């Protein structure tokens, strides 16, 4: 799965029992793909000593600040690995 710019994606809502780089403030929220930032080793695997770690596409994902914190007219862009994301069906958004 490769997400193109403008694709609406939801960040994983779960709280894994290991290190992850999904910030709590975006979990479960819907954002929009800005662009792909190349492919990088998954920090969750690297932190647990899993070798070789999975290598995944990393995306810049833009979230409206108001959705995350209930206030603000700006957006927040976060780098997220592909397995942190699920595509949102158009009618769900």
């Amino acid at each position, binding site marked *: 799965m490769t997400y193109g710019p403008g694709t609406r994606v939801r960040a994983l809502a779960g709280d894994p029992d290991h*290190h992850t780089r999904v910030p709590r*403030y975006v979990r479960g929220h819907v954002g929009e793909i800005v662009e792909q930032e190349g492919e990088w080793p998954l920090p969750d695997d*690297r*932190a*647990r000593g899993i070798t070789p770690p999975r290598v995944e596409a990393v995306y810049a994902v833009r979230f409206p600040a108001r959705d995350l914190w209930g206030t603000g007219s700006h957006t927040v862009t976060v780098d997220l690995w592909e397995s942190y994301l699920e595509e949102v069906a158009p009618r769900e958004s």
Partner: protein
Amino acid sequence: MGGQDGFGPVPVGDDGAPFQADWEAKVFALSRALRRNGAFNLDEMRDAIERIPPEDYLAASYYERWLIAMEMILAEKGLA
């Protein structure tokens, strides 16, 4: 603990210096040296910082957390 809000402002030195004390520079250098030699990677370091018990995490300064985390990793890997 990482990434949570509601803990107030982060104290930052107003003189622009990267370190507030010599020991902080030594902790920084030690972390770079250990990583370069393969003792741990950046994600293991972040994981260790997150595993510091909350009461210790909240009582520690930024570089004290780095030092605690490095001590944890070296002990866990039998390198200490």
